[in-house]
């Protein structure tokens, strides 16, 4: 893909007789957030390691910013949080991030301010001077994220970034990743937590048994766009046409109205919900409830990786 920050073409990796990747092709555009999904042992981490230059592919090519992934210059704009990581426990959090800032090329004069900034961003501002040996798993994961972003990367590869975090921590990381994405950083999120992927990513790539099984938007994966479930006080024949402009309208067995949003509303479900609420309250139907939902990514994912040869 022209202008892609990450481009992998027919990557194959064999460990002896075991083939971890079989011709994986993927691209990531600037500012795009892509979720990498797949069951355990699918080859996701191997793919990420090839993209970071940690592992050499048996065949195929991987480039970052137009340079081969093994080229150090290709990694100048890369941030990476490994799946299995540990930091020297004798260092403080500040020292770890400063060490990585040094390696990432952050100038000596900018380093103290940048270290303080990223520790604050990941919620470790008050614990930066503590030794890493005393950090909880969640704090270590936040520290991992801090070192990944300290070099102001344009591409962030996050391998299970929230696996050790509590719900508050997961929300913090989600917000941070969303902010980075809004700032133009491309993000590849390798996670088993499908809700994280669903909330952050524009696109998903499903890898199973070393193959790319799917690459596309969440809507394409789940088969349909976001939906609105509308509960009204009075249901009559006039309601359906009033809501038809938002998408396909159906009445469920329980008497609720379900709207599968169509273009352009499927891109702005929250805005569609406001408009639907306004339309219903303007009429005689009485709005009792309105929920925005999406066909479950988990269902689609499980169906995809459970089918075929599994």
């Amino acid at each position, binding site marked *: 893909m022209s202008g892609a920050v990450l481009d992998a073409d027919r990557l194959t990796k064999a460990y002896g007789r075991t083939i971890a990747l079989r011709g994986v092709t993927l691209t990531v555009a600037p500012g795009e957030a892509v979720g990498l999904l797949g069951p355990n042992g699918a080859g996701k981490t191997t793919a990420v390691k090839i993209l970071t230059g940690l592992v050499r592919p048996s065949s195929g090519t991987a480039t970052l910013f137009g340079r081969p992934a093994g080229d150090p210059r290709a990694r100048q704009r890369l941030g990476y949080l490994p799946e*299995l*990581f540990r930091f*020297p426990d004798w260092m403080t959090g500040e020292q770890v991030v400063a060490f990585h800032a*040094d*390696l990432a090329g952050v100038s000596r004069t900018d380093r103290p301010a940048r270290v303080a900034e990223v520790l604050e961003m990941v919620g470790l501002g008050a614990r930066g001077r503590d030794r890493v040996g005393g950090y909880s798993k969640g704090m270590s994961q936040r520290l991992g994220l801090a070192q*990944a972003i300290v070099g102001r990367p344009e591409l962030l590869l996050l391998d299970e970034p929230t696996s050790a975090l509590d719900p508050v921590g997961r929300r913090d990381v989600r917000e941070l990743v969303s902010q980075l994405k809004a700032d133009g950083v491309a993000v590849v999120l390798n996670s088993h937590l499908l809700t994280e992927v669903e909330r952050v990513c524009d696109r998903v790539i499903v890898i199973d048994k070393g193959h790319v099984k799917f690459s596309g938007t969440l809507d394409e994966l789940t088969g349909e766009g976001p939906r609105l479930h509308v509960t009204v006080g009075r249901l009559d024949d006039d309601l359906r046409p009033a809501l038809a402009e938002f998408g396909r309208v159906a009445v469920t067995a329980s008497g609720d109205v379900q709207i599968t949003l169509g273009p352009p509303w499927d891109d702005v479900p929250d805005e569609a919900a406001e408009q639907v609420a306004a339309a219903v309250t303007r009429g005689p139907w009485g709005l009792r409830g309105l929920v925005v939902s999406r066909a479950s990514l988990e269902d689609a994912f499980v169906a995809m990786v459970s089918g075929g040869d599994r």
Partner: protein
Amino acid sequence: MRLAIYRATLGEAFGRKIVLWGWIASALLVGLFGLGLAFLYDRVRQDDSLTTLAQRVLVGGILTILGLYVGSFLSAFLAMMLAAGSVSTEIDSGVLQAVVVRPQPRWRWYLERWFGLVTMAVVYVVVMTLAILLVAKLVSGYEPGSLFGLLAILALQVTLLVTVGMLLSCRLSSVATGVVLFLYFGIAWMGGFIGWIGGLAEKPELTTIGTVVSLVAPSDALWKAASSYAIPLGMPMGSTGQADLPFLSTLAPSPWFLGWAGLLTLGLLALGIRAFSRRDL
């Protein structure tokens, strides 16, 4: 970036209190050596059978060289311990993955790590040797024939062991590296012993075995080369050039052998860089 990995390697030694405890233990050892040497040297001076000054100097010298031998052994031990997990532990623990994806070539990480470990090992062997020599000087007036030659060769010995250890650590686990490294060190010692027996018994085939082993595993031969510089100038150690002791040599080391040991170290360093650069992490 100014030698960040080198500084981190040294920082680790301080952070984990390796330096502190290493020096405390070493200070105890030097203290014990001083006590032992003072006691023995006092006995030697009172021994009527050792009538000449030269004989007394000889005994004091041998005791000091024994002390240096122990110091060299400990330094070699430290070098092997430092190197055994230098790469494999970093990979297994997951510390390395986030570091080597930074925008610098892998050889740089390897070289800086090597340099850091070599710095620690060399500083240790130099300080230990100087401490032992200082004690010997104070107790018996001992002075080595060539302090520079002694220190330089001991530094080369620990550098070689760190280099071999890092190379092994690229491919083997920490425990396996430690075992193989000790075997390497032990084979070198055994080779030296066999060569010494060959010299005493005038069996050229044994001497040849000792020479071949010293070329492949030169750590013991390097110690012997260093010991020749430890002997005070003018100290009578036998006319054949081969003292009747298995742990020292009175022969000045061959420049060819020293050159070979240096080249071998550089070659193994290059091999280690290549192995590390090509392996999957």
